């Protein structure tokens, strides 16, 4: 079992409030990502779950047991750190053995020299060796077992750190940005490996990242945190397509979502930049913000389509996609439009007409709440 629930967690460092009344239920076996910009409190939250940090108020409940006053090592969780945090003076094998020895050996058995004479130790040593071997086979690091962390590449260290977490067969894995020290290609590769690992282990994963791509690709559910608050907890596609507030919409998705000032008429129809939305909204406000993802805008040559004019100021060619940064007016900020390379390149300084490719767009109050 690996259900974890957090109830009204508050945490502050001095006068800075890091977490504000945060509640979260994590189901058994799910891959939950805590995602948010740096400084939003996600790592602190993970440390509170781990027991490395004490919350000011609120409860942490693991498998229906309140663990507020349980030591980190007794919570039966394992953690993978951003810097891997392997013991630099020990071989990979010893690194993997350490948590098991500390858990299984008695005080006397742990003593150097004397420990060897305790008869029960031999049996325990055997089971530890078996576990270490099994884990190293799963992670394909068997041939690295006798090397020290300093002799490993970033990816190998990452595996060793995963191994150290896995040997304990914990109720849940806590991961604090484990991929952010790897190079881009390896990171993408490790994403799929982690997902596979999650599928085969079927253990709860709690994964902290600031990289929304990792959150979107790996998680069963993602929790978007900004400024110490949990803004939305949902499946990745739901968070992307149906954000609950403008802050979530702006954080999730790269390039960033475009926002436009919009007017709402009394009958609920919405107009922005000369484009009228098909759908009518039920709201009392007169002003609102329309948010459109770059892929829902298009550069059009069809003069019948409702559109607005803009000048291309910069283009980002990613191969599969081209993002055009366009300037609508001198005064307004830039918006980003996705174009396909097949349509041919448009050079900087050219004036283009931009329209909605889907007639749908999200509407937000000026304060940021979603209008549905």
């Amino acid at each position: 079992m690996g259900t974890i629930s957090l109830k009204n967690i508050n945490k502050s460092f001095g006068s800075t409030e890091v977490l504000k009344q945060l509640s979260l239920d994590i189901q058994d076996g799910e891959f939950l990502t805590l995602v948010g910009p740096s400084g939003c409190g996600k790592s602190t939250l993970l440390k509170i779950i781990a027991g490395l940090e004490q919350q000011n108020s609120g409860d942490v409940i693991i498998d229906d047991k309140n663990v507020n006053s349980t030591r980190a090592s007794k919570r039966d969780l394992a953690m993978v750190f951003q810097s891997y945090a392997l013991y630099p003076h020990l071989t990979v094998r010893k690194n993997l053995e350490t948590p098991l020895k500390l858990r299984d050996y008695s005080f006397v058995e742990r003593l150097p020299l004397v420990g060897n004479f305790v008869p029960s130790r031999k049996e325990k040593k055997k089971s530890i060796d078996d576990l270490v071997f099994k884990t190293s086979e799963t992670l394909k690091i068997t041939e690295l077992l006798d090397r020290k962390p300093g002799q490993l590449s970033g990816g190998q260290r990452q595996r060793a750190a995963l191994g150290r977490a896995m040997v304990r067969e914990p109720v849940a894995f806590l991961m604090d940005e484990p991929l952010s020290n790897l190079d881009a290609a390896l990171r993408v590769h490790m994403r799929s490996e982690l997902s596979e690992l999650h599928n085969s282990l079927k253990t709860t994963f709690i994964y902290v990242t600031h990289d929304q791509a990792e959150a979107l690709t790996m998680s069963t559910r993602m929790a978007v945190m900004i400024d110490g608050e949990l803004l939305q907890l949902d499946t990745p596609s739901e968070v992307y397509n149906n954000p609950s507030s403008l802050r979530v919409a702006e954080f999730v998705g790269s390039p960033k979502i475009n926002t436009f000032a919009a007017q709402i008429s009394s009958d609920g129809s919405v107009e922005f930049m000369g484009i009228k939305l098909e759908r009518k909204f039920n709201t009392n406000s007169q002003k609102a913000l329309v948010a459109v993802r770059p892929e829902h805008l298009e550069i059009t040559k069809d003069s019948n389509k409702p559109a607005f004019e803009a000048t291309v100021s910069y283009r980002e060619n990613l191969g599969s996609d081209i993002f055009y940064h366009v300037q609508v007016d001198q005064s307004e900020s830039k918006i980003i439009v996705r174009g396909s390379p097949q349509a041919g390149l448009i050079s900087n300084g050219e004036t283009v007409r931009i329209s909605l490719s889907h007639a749908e767009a999200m509407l937000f109050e000026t304060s940021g709440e979603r209008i549905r």
Partner: protein
Amino acid sequence: MLARHYIGESWKHGLLIIGALIVLIPFYMMVSMSLKSQQEIQSISGGLVGAQEIQTFPVCTKHGYTEEVCTMRPYKYNFWFAFKKAPIPRYLMNGLIVTVSIFLIQVLIALPCSYALAKLRFKGREFVFSMVLFCLLIPVHAIALPLYVMLAKAGLVDTYAALIIPWTISVFGIFLMRQFFMTVPDELIDAARMDGMGEYSIVWKVMLPVAIPALLAFAIFSVVAHWNDYFWPRIVITGNRDLFTPPLGIREFRGGIDSDEFGPMMASIVTVTIPLIVAFIVAQKRFVEGITMTGMK
């Protein structure tokens, strides 16, 4: 352009060479005097090693040795007589016992202290650390007398304990290790806590192995300082020659009827300095690393 560059460079090198000579010449004289005869030393002749003529040494015969025993080459005589006159191996042994015990106890105390100061959060931590910094400013000589009185009241004068106890808490060591521990990532300690280690296990099983380079640097500072220390042993070792450390032992060669015989005296000094020089050559790289690491560059 190039010529000017070389002039600028040679100027610097010249200055450094002069500095090096000022340090090296006393060493050269020490080695040279330990090899030469008394006449050569006094007449400043004979270069580095002297003529090494076989001769009979009068001070030796005055000490009751036969003329036959006292006839040999000067270098041999100097070292032989130095060892005859004073129990130099005993002094070296004392030096070893004292410096090693001081260092081990210093580590035993400094590591947990600096770990707490660097990595644990508790009320008054900054105050405690500022007190550590404050203690760095207190010169030994200022507290020597009260320390001596305390040791005397405890009946510890003329014991190894008097040589060791006052140095066991090294604020410099605490400061140095604290600065080093600050650079150890918190994640490593968190990982150890997740694995189930207690705070003391973390200090000895994680922090100690990680801190070996810093500890070696500290070892060099500590051992050199206490091996060479003359002031403190002179105060607390009042009569018992069996407790003399090497610097106190050298003093034996000063004063008395044969006070002017420099050869054996220099030979004893060479013997006493050799362990440190050998240690330096062996650990030269570490030594430089240690000094640059502690920010004393």
